[in-house]
């Protein structure tokens, strides 16, 4: 280390220390604590006694059918985010960027609007749409001419994620549209003009010029979508009612919450919840790793 660097070290430490301390206490400590907790039977309500139980929480989790059900639902949410919200957001942004519709600002605001609403409020709104004799059921009744017909997809584990996928797309597509639009606006118009002069069609411009230029943005959006999908709790929690619907639509964060905070019969429930949350992080890292790998392979 140079003498000048050594002299600057105290200043460096003084400047870095506050942020570092906050990071250590707010981010690093809870992660470390959660990992430790998941290998114990610690229950903070039991007087601080704990024993090391090894991988018991993890083996219990892998044997729990609710875990696999929640993981399946979570992967559906990830798929909806990555293959639904992002492409739709991209296409909408492209339509607006290329001014293929009139009233660009109106549509931009309209699609982005859900971002201004509280997720809980959105969840309750969608719940109202799906309830017995609610707006969607009424439409079904009118179309089918059966006054008893109901929108029942929320009742079945196999179909519950379909209406939820619609809600997820409605809520979050606007955010990705805005990200893509902001990046599209940075593209030099001359590139598109040159492609046009070379005889490129609109689809060729989109696929051969725009998509490669925004590969980095697509990757970042995918990472955001994956991370957001795996920790997503509020929308699905509020869109479903307590009981059958919520169990059908259970994703890992809800499974973690119910295991850690509601199942009083499991005295190790906090440690079990910690194990589930750690697995959520691991799955996130794996998926993000895969998306980066795919991103590198398709880098232009």
């Amino acid at each position, binding site marked *: 280390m140079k003498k000048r660097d050594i*002299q*600057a070290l*105290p*200043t460096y430490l*003084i*400047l870095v220390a*506050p942020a570092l301390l906050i990071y250590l206490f707010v981010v690093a400590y809870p992660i470390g604590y959660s990992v430790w907790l998941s290998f114990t039977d610690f*229950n*903070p*309500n*039991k*007087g601080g006694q704990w024993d090391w139980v090894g991988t018991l929480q993890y083996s219990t989790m892998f044997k729990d059918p609710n875990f696999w059900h929640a993981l399946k639902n979570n992967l559906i949410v990830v798929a909806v985010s990555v293959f639904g919200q992002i492409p739709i957001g991209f296409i909408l942004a492209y339509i607006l960027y290329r001014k293929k519709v009139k009233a660009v600002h109106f549509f931009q605001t309209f699609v982005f609007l859900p971002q201004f609403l509280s997720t809980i409020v959105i969840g309750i709104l969608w*719940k109202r749409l*799906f*309830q*017995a*004799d*609610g707006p969607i*059921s009424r439409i079904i009744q009118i179309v089918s001419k059966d006054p*008893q017909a*109901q*929108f*029942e997809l*929320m*009742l*079945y584990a196999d179909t519950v994620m379909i209406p939820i996928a619609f809600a997820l797309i409605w809520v979050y597509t606007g955010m990705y549209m805005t990200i893509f639009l902001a990046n599209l606006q940075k593209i030099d118009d001359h590139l598109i003009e040159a492609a046009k002069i070379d005889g490129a069609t609109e689809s060729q411009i989109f696929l051969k010029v725009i998509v490669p230029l925004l590969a980095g943005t697509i990757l970042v959006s995918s990472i955001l979508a994956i991370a957001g999908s795996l920790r997503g709790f509020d929308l699905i929690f509020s869109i479903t*009612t*307590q*009981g*059958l*619907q919520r*169990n059908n639509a259970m994703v890992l964060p809800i499974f973690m*919450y*119910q295991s850690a*905070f*509601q*199942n*009083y*019969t*499991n005295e190790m429930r*906090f440690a079990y919840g910690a194990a589930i949350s750690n697995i959520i992080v691991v799955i996130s890292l794996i998926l993000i790793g895969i998306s980066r790998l795919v991103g590198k392979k398709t880098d232009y």
Partner: protein
Amino acid sequence: MKKGKVFVLALLVMVMIVPSLWAQGAQEAGTDGKVVVKTMAYGDNSNQEGVNWVRIVNSFEKENPDIDIDYEMLYDEAYHQKVVARLAAGDVPDLAYMGADARWGLPWKEAGQQFDHTEFLDPDYYDLNLIPPMDMNGEIYEIPLGTSNITTVLFMNTRLMDELGLSAPETYEDMVAMVPVARKAGIEVLTIDGADGWAWGSCLMSAVVARMSGDPQWVSKAVAGEYSFDDKVMIDSLSFLNRMVDDGVLLEKSVLVDYGANVSNYNNEKALFMVQGQWVAGGIENPEVANATKMIAWPTLPGEKPGLEGSVAAAIQVGYGLTKQGASDPEVRDAALKFLRYFFSHAETTQRLRDGAIVAPILKDFEVPSDLPSIVKEKVALAQRAPNTDVIDAFLSGDANEALNTGMQKIVSGQSTPEEVAMQVESLVQR
């Protein structure tokens, strides 16, 4: 960099950080001289319970400027979530809305925060005969808002019944006979918030299983191991749900109706009967419907054993109680008890009675006003005449209770059989 510059930089950092710390300290010291009672209250700004709470705290603090009721008010699931989170985080309130059973009392019990109020309750003020013991040695962990909480009430709209030429059912078959009449009128016989899992257990099955077994304590005995949840009694009780759907008394779509929609259906006269607990009486805001409402127990059910005719399931009502932590500081304890006495004043208790929040008061020498709304009189009359049985989630908790509640939703929507649900519940009960 010169030492002088380093010093100036350090000074700048200090100047930036210290005032914020100081400001935080000043904020905490803002309540200087006051006894602060950290409280978890129940309600929200849109319901009577929450509005009354805010009003009571404001007037109490005005009369007692040396006491600060520092409360956090939450309602429904948000309350349950926050209780668990606060207890786990060690952020224990001094005073809280709580119960003593498996649904409302377990978190406090597990955290060792239940405090026996017995010696602090003035027997000349509270009628201790009306506050049931909450543990083995007669402990009283909370002061209930009222006497026992009836959870399995049939709210009957007598105006609609009269219009359709119907009379109060004495047997379940009488309800079945109402189905074609109600359908012709474009309404339902029964509305229940079947989208909420807990409603099936608390508001329906608690009554059914007691009637089918003839044992008012069937649930608590089953949890203790004396009976089994896959006994024929339980399977028959769960099968009754199928029968209700087949008979048209209960509609399959009930599993898509949530709490708000259920009350709204009844308020808007879309059903002859509503299944819920006594507390909903205050939520019947249509005055015509409220005045025409009779609160009754389930009529005689098919297969019901003799001895429990007209019974309702009822649990010790929730209320407010000191935590062990709150009681450990005599100043806080005395301030909280003073507030509780104010909260349970005759005037406020009368208001609670009028609002339909309680069945009957737990105060000594309480004179019931003669001008109570008719629906409140209905409630008091039901409490006086109906024998009480166990409420399921007062004894059954965790995964087993969840399996039972969702299982009933699956039975009604045709996804499970009573036998499957009963076996799953039994496999999850921890004794």
